[in-house]
């Protein structure tokens, strides 16, 4: 049988899914052992026991200096910034995207501006944000918004414009005005694409968050990683990175479930006759 036609069964698929992770873990263990054998105080590839110690220290022991559980404080601070930034961006993307997509007058006015903004690398204006909004929470949330809302706007504008013209004509023959068509016809149909777009931009949102925190913050996952980098504390950095990946994965899964649950008509789509 050709390779392209052989499909793994369920058990096989799960095994194959896990295989690369297992291989990576084995390679890491061997490499770490080898280095530690040569130099027991090596910091680059810590042993599994050092990770356990570090997690215990960061997550389950109050910090000596502040008495806080650092991992949770960092997570709460980062998640708050991230969720705020993503939620505001989604709202901006939805409103401007639908309005631009539906109203040629608005599109003519706003579309070039959105394109221009989206071409500026957000990191390049981070200094401006710090100057304008100060070093507090606002500038970091603003960085996320400036980074991802142009992408969301452009994506949702295209989605709105690609609604079948027949639908929009039909709605007009049902007596709807522009506003009603936006609220009852366009908006609900743009919500599932909004969720997909947010899922895709979550990676960028994390990037901007970590970058913002690395430069100016007093707590946060990105702040911590960059702080302890000075001590080459790989035993803390790697669990933090893994934790960020887990948080990102959970968010992505939640959004996927939300979409499937809230928009059955979008996911149960059969072939349109």
């Amino acid at each position, binding site marked *: 049988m050709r390779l392209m036609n052989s499909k793994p069964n369920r058990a096989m698929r799960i095994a194959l899914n896990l295989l690369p992770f297992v291989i990576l873990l084995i390679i890491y263990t061997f490499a770490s052992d080898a280095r530690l054998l040569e130099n027991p105080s090596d910091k680059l590839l810590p042993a599994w026991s050092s990770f356990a110690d570090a997690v215990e220290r960061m997550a389950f022991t109050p910090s000596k200096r502040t008495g806080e559980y650092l991992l949770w404080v960092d997570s709460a601070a980062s998640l708050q910034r991230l969720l705020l930034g993503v939620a505001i961006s989604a709202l901006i993307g939805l409103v401007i995207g639908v309005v631009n997509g539906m109203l040629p007058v608005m599109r003519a006015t706003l579309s070039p501006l959105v394109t221009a903004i989206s071409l500026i690398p957000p990191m390049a204006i981070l200094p401006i944000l710090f100057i304008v909004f100060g070093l507090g929470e606002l500038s970091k949330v603003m960085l996320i918004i400036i980074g991802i809302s142009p992408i969301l706007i452009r994506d949702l504008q295209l989605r709105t414009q690609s609604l*079948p013209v027949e*639908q929009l004509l*039909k709605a007009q*023959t049902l*007596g*709807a005005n522009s*506003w009603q068509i936006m609220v009852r016809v366009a908006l609900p*149909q743009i919500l599932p694409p909004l969720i997909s777009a947010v899922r895709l931009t979550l990676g960028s949102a994390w990037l901007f968050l970590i970058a913002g925190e690395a430069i100016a913050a007093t707590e946060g996952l990105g702040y911590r990683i960059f702080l302890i980098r000075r001590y080459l504390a790989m035993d803390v950095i790697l669990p933090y990175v893994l934790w960020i990946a887990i948080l990102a994965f959970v968010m992505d899964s939640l959004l996927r479930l939300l979409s499937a649950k809230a928009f059955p008509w*979008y996911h149960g789509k059969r072939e349109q006759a």
Partner: protein
Amino acid sequence: MNNAIIEIKQVWKEYGDQVVLEKLNLSVQAGEFISIVGASGCGKTTLLNMLLGTESPSRGTLLLDGKPMPAEPNATRGIVFQKYSVFPHLNALQNVMLGDEFSASPFLGKVVFAKPRKKLQAKALEMLKAVGLEDAAMRYPSELSGGMQQRLAIAQALVKAPRILLLDEPFGALDPGIRKDMHELISRLWKKLGLTVFMITHDLSEGFSLGSRVWVLDKPRIDPQQPERYGAQVVYDISLTSEQKIPQSIQNLLGKTAQDVYDISLNSEQKLPDSIQNLLDNTAQDKAV
């Protein structure tokens, strides 16, 4: 003919130098069912768009109930397209209710209070029953077959009681068996509700078997050097009501290729004469099988 529902007076449609439709002079009474046939690209859709209001005539006047046709679509004209006529995010019942919700709630476009909502639901269910979809009221369009989606689209359009109903190749994508059911449905609704219907079709037998009148669009003159110089006209305006003789003028036109006199009755099972079939075949290469 002052009580005509649609009057088309000396209407031309041109895009720059390209003449699409020329010299249309037609008048339609309430309750007529007009099938519009013709080759692809001969202006059927342009004519429909003018009736819908998405395009306006370059010259001449188009009257609805004696008043100029509004320049954008509104609730006086219902439409059913071949595809995408229903809203995928609403179930069948919500799709049918939508028209009434728009008029009842200018700001939200949605009737939220239970009592008036019940009333609209009852009316929508009644309409779904009329098109045979009462058992599918809670299903989304993606869960409906192509024929059921078109039934839904018809129900949705009829809720607004439009003055005229436009059908743009409504059954073109359906299987022959389903198509026959749909023909029965639309004939029944037409007679029961006294609708005025315009239907574009590629299928000649559909055009001649449904409704009361057939318009054949074609270009009577063609300049080989400049094909866009002349537009299409309604070359045959054939009344299909029983026992009626085809007017002399159309007989003359038909006489160019055939000497027979046609008396085509909708009610009989009479086949179309070969000569007329041949004549019409030129204008509908993609006639459905």
